[in-house]
């Protein structure tokens, strides 16, 4: 069988970028949460806020470290596997991606060290300022990355000369049509991810009766946030969808599983899209609802996949089902927020084991929602890399062979499996050890600058020195 370097490169990119994406989406939300905790601690002087902040800063350090490690690979992927694309788009993507890198460095150099290691070294106001700057920095980082991605989805502010993109307007290129919606959508997704992870972990601690006061406060905050942000995400997502309908109608057609352009299009709850036959099997839908959602009229016209030649259609089933999973999880999130509100009077949600169990399970939900959301937008623009201008076949490295691509694909899977199972395992250890007895550790860390993981002081193995014996954690 002939190995296809294009297909293998797509799989490889999907693999490394999916792996990478889960870390920043969490750190962006968590950084803001830490800044809020620091702010509350600074304002009220209640030590419980600082206790929470200290603990979640450790988690932040480990996740941030994993994000940086997986991000290094990303910055070389464009060149190794998509060199024609890199060459053609470098005038815009080069500076934009570099700005992301220097933002991250600036952040790490100036403020991350203070946040992670400076609690006892700098005045509380400076520490709070560092926390706010780290949170701001994560947003600036995502600003650049999403500007780059959005430009590939809805290219603007450029002209093509000899197959090379030249920027004619930086503001039009950066603030391209899909950028504002994508940025809002991802920002809220980060907040939801942070909220659900903190809520889930706090719920788990409450189920075990650990650090009840602090974890109740954390859970209460998260439930308020979820109550407002989960529905807001639905609204922003709707606007994002309308923008996609305008600029990338084929993607919307794939999301809806709609083959023929027509009015009164039903909202499909279930279907098995069949790309071969260009139709769906086993459709179950609500009449005219897709038309209503997308055009705000019952008999509105929704574009169909058959408007474009078959080779310009994305893989419909992946887009169709990823979209349903994402929306399904979003709906669950809204329900969790409302349930939290219903149980709020008298603090009943602290005492209801089933609700705490639900929260514990839901802590993984935002990651699935984020990944499937990215599947929708990335797979949905196939076969285009720069939408409507450069397709994947034209973008791939010409000298790449199937064997080379397979070698590195397997290689990255092995490396990531080894490194990140260690990372996730270690993160579980940090959570297991928990908020208790964090004092006395800071002293050893006197002058350590930014080495993210080292902000967490938890031994690697289970054993005689977990939280029941904190004295051993400090020193080596």
């Amino acid at each position, binding site marked *: 069988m002939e190995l296809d370097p294009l297909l293998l490169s797509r799989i490889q990119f999907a693999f490394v970028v999916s792996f990478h994406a889960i870390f920043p989406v969490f750190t962006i939300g968590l950084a803001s949460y830490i800044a809020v905790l620091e702010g509350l601690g600074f304002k009220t002087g209640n030590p419980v806020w600082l206790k929470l902040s200290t603990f979640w800063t450790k988690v932040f350090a480990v996740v941030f470290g994993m994000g940086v*490690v997986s*991000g*290094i*690979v990303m*910055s*070389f992927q464009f*060149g*190794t596997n998509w*060199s*024609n694309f*890199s*060459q053609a788009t*470098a*005038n815009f*993507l*080069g*500076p934009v*991606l*570099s*700005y*992301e*890198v*220097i933002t991250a*460095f*600036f952040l*790490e*150099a*100036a403020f991350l060290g203070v946040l992670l290691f400076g609690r006892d070294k700098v005045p509380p106001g400076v520490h709070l300022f560092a926390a706010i700057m780290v949170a701001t920095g994560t947003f600036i980082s995502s600003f650049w990355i999403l500007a780059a991605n959005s430009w590939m989805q809805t290219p603007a502010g450029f002209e093509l000369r000899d197959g*090379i993109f*030249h*920027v004619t307007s930086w503001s039009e290129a950066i603030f391209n049509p899909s950028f504002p919606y994508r940025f809002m959508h991802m920002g809220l997704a980060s907040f939801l991810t942070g909220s659900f992870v903190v809520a889930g972990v706090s719920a788990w601690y409450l189920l075990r009766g650990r650090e009840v006061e602090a974890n109740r406060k954390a859970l209460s905050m998260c439930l308020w946030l979820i109550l407002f942000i989960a529905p807001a995400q639905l609204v922003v997502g709707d606007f994002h969808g309308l923008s996609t309908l305008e600029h990338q109608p084929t993607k919307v057609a794939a999301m809806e599983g709609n083959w023929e352009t027509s009015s009164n299009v039903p909202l499909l709850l279930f279907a098995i899209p069949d790309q071969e036959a260009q139709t769906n099997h086993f459709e179950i839908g609500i009449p005219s609802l897709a038309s209503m959602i997308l055009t705000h009229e019952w008999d509105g016209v929704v574009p169909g996949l058959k408007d474009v030649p078959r080779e310009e259609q994305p893989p419909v089933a992946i887009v169709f089902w990823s979209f349903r999973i994402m929306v399904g999880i979003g709906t669950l999130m809204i329900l969790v927020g409302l349930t939290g509100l219903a149980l709020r009077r008298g603090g009943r949600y602290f005492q209801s084991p089933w609700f705490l169990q639900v929260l514990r399970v839901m802590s993984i939900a935002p990651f699935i929602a984020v990944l499937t959301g990215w599947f929708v937008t990335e797979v949905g623009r196939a076969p285009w890399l720069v939408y409507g201008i450069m397709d994947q076949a034209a973008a791939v*490295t*010409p*000298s790449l*062979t199937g*064997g*080379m691509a397979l*070698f*590195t694909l397997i*290689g*990255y899977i092995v*490396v990531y499996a*080894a*490194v990140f199972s*260690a990372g996730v395992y*270690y993160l579980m250890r940090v959570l297991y050890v928990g908020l208790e007895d964090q004092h006395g550790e800071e002293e*050893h860390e006197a*002058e*350590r*600058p930014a*080495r*993210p*993981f*080292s902000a967490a002081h*938890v*031994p*690697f*193995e289970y*054993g005689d020195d977990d939280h029941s014996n904190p004295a051993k954690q400090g*020193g080596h």
Partner: protein
Amino acid sequence: MELFDLPLIWAFIIGFGIIMYVLMDGFDLGVGILFPFAPSEEDRDTMMNSVAPVWDGNETWLVLGGAGLLAAFPMVYSIFLPALYIGVFLLLAGLIFRGVAFEFRFKARTSRYLWNWAFAGGSTIASFAQGAVVGAYIQGFNTVDGVFVGGALDWLTPFTVLTGLGMLAGYALLGSTWLIMKTEGRLQEWAYRITLPLLAAVLIIFGIISVWTPFVDDLVRERWFSNLTVIWVLPVLTLLCAFQIFRSVRNRLEGMPFVATMGLFVTTYLGLVVSRWPYVVPPEYTLWEAASAYESQLFLLLGLLFVIPIVLTYTAWTYWVFRGKVRAGEGYH
């Protein structure tokens, strides 16, 4: 409109970034290469502690270099990475393993030997891959219309294997002289002992490379044997640095061996640069041909001019904070 020769400015920035990376990540990779041969596990703790506070700052130069190349010299980026495809993977895999080993080895107990191997193996593979990349650059690339058309293993030749080994020996030398400066007692004594054999290895391998290089490419030969005799000062300086390492180790000086080793790297690097200047994708493309659009280079330069001084200040501050000797059992942990 084109007020400045921006490609030239960018060539200096990226050239500066490369030598910063080589010097700074060089000594911590070197410590990794020497890791398995250390006298004891306690010494390994000290070795790792001596580089633990600074290694990740050192590696940021590599990421900045990757992104900066895409922005300023996209042709270099989109020819080198496909041409060095397998090598780049090995480099990244090596760096990831040793990076994670840094974080977990200190926290591990029963699994410590695994992280030792990850650290030493990752450092060795990454160093060799970097040396092979340099060799591949000297060899030049098989391109048509600015696109790499060669094979997957073009970069792996006897010549690049030799440059890979040269890099291993060179980084090990940086590592051993770093340890002389940063440690004391038995570990320092060990570092003194291995430095001269390492220096001999470096001189032999670098010597073979220097003799071989003019035969790899005609332009390099012309450059060195034409009327541009002033560049011969560079190999002379390299030899002076080597002599200085020899002398300072014999006299048991502590800081000088490391400083002289850095000098040896800088002069060798400059020798390499003059061999190939102004070709950035040998044998065909100069830095002006490989550059991105003027407005793109300008757009990024504005941000970089703001950030580089801050990164340099922070770097200097970090090294200042961690100045002096690292003692056993008195790590940063």
